[in-house]
Each structure stands twice: as structure tokens, then as C-alpha cells.
């Protein structure tokens, strides 16, 4: 006679834990990408920031007064679905913009950089196995 025992609940628990840990890691990485200066593609001149800092060239962070960094919010929606949202002008940082006088602001896709650096699939597998 063969008996079998389902361990679905235990496996699901491990999946949920892995998802939570991966989501937190991505959240942290996004903060890091916003705060750390890095080389963004595009043409950036000299910018006088509201914080008083003057930056020039492509090697810069996207921090300034920290509004973007502070407005980041992680909202759990469903068991395996989280939403990340940012405040008012975040879309212009992320997508770039064209001003009425014809000048352009290059896009800075910080979500893509963070997703690459956080190595989401690998992190998920590692968290699942530990």
C-alpha cells in the first residue's frame, strides 16, 4: 500500500517567502540606484539643483532634494503582485521630456537599471532554496 502526503502548503509558503524577499531586495535596489551617481545615457549639461548643488555631465544621481526617493512606495496587491509607485514628476525623470522651447531631457530608466542590478530571477531562486 502506498500513502502520499501533500506538502503543497509548505511549498507555497516557501514561494511566498521568496517573493517577499525578492520584492524587498528590488525596493532597496531602487533606492540605491536613485541615490548613487551613475553614468546615464544622453546629453546633460550643467544643472543647478534646488538643493544648491551644481552637477555637470552624465555622471550624476537623481536625488536633488530627495522627493523621488522619499515618494517611492511598495504596495502589496495580491499574493504574488506588488506595485511600486513614485510621486509627481517621476514619470518625467523615467521617460524623459521635451520642453516647449525644444530642449530635451533624456530619459533615466531607473527601474530598468534596478531590475538588472537586483538580478530578480536569481534572487528569487536563491531565496526559495534557502
Amino acid at each position, binding site marked *: 500500500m502506498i500513502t502520499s502526503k501533500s506538502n503543497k502548503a509548505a511549498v507555497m509558503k516557501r514561494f511566498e517567502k521568496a517573493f517577499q524577499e525578492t520584492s524587498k531586495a528590488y525596493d532597496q535596489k531602487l533606492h540605491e540606484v536613485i541615490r548613487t551617481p551613475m553614468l546615464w545615457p544622453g546629453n546633460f549639461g550643467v544643472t543647478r539643483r534646488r538643493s544648491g548643488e551644481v552637477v555637470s555631465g552624465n555622471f550624476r544621481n537623481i536625488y536633488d532634494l530627495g522627493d523621488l526617493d522619499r515618494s517611492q512606495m511598495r504596495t502589496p496587491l495580491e499574493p504574488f503582485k506588488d506595485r511600486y509607485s513614485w510621486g509627481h514628476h517621476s*514619470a518625467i525623470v523615467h521617460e524623459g521630456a*521635451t520642453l516647449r522651447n525644444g530642449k530635451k531631457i533624456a530619459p533615466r530608466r531607473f527601474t530598468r537599471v534596478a531590475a538588472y542590478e537586483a538580478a530578480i530571477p536569481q534572487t528569487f531562486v536563491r531565496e526559495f532554496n534557502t
Partner: protein
Amino acid sequence: MTPEQMKTALTQILTDPDNKVGGNILGTYTLPGGSVVPAIADEQVPDDWEVRGVEAILPIIEGGETSWRVRHVVKEQRWDVQLIQWPPAEGEPNRLRAVVDRLERILAHSFTVAVPADDLLGTLPQARVSFPLYELKETIKSFCFSP
């Protein structure tokens, strides 16, 4: 597929008056000499070109995305079209919504990121339509070069 072919295909979808989805809804560049061409470009055009209506820009360098299937890493080639709504010519409506709508209907697997105008910063309304390359290839086969 080269950027030139991509440009030709998108121009045909958006400007050809004889195609199946309707007329020309793309904006125009007016060159210093006075000639008028469809407003679609690889990068930023010279400052003395006048832009009217919806401008489409195809950034040449855009990284592909990798994703995990069961145990393989799959490389997907995606293309982005950036659409910018400049002040239209006299008597013409703003056509950004129509352009996004047409691209979304033809390229069913695309997604759109729209950014509205911001009066304080003085930015223009814009949208980015991102689609996988295979879809446009099919579209060209069945749509653009059919007799």
C-alpha cells in the same frame, strides 16, 4: 531589421492615405528650404526644422530585454517609438491619442507609457509605445506590402 526599414514601415502605417486604417495622422517637419516631410526621425532633428503635430522618434540604441523562461534565458528585441505632441497646424486637432490608438490596434502586444503635459515645467504631452520586433515583421508581411 535596420532602423531605416523600421522607419519606412511606421511611416507607411501612420501616413499612407491608401492604407486600410485611415489617412495621415502624423505631423510634419518643415525644412529651412520650405519642403515638408513626415515627422519621423532616428534622433533629434536640427533646431531650424519646424515641427507641427505629432512627432515620432525611434531611438536607435535601446537595449533588448532578457527574461527567464523555464530554464532558458530568452532575449527579446523590443523597439520603442517616442511620440511627442507639438502644437498642430492651424485647424487641426491634437492627434497624439489617435496615433497611439492606431499603433496599439495594429501592434497587439505593445504597451504604452503616457506622460501628460506639465505646465509648471513646460513639458509637452508625450507617449512611448513599446512593441516586440516579431510583431512588426508580421504586420509588414500582412499589411504594408500587400498588393
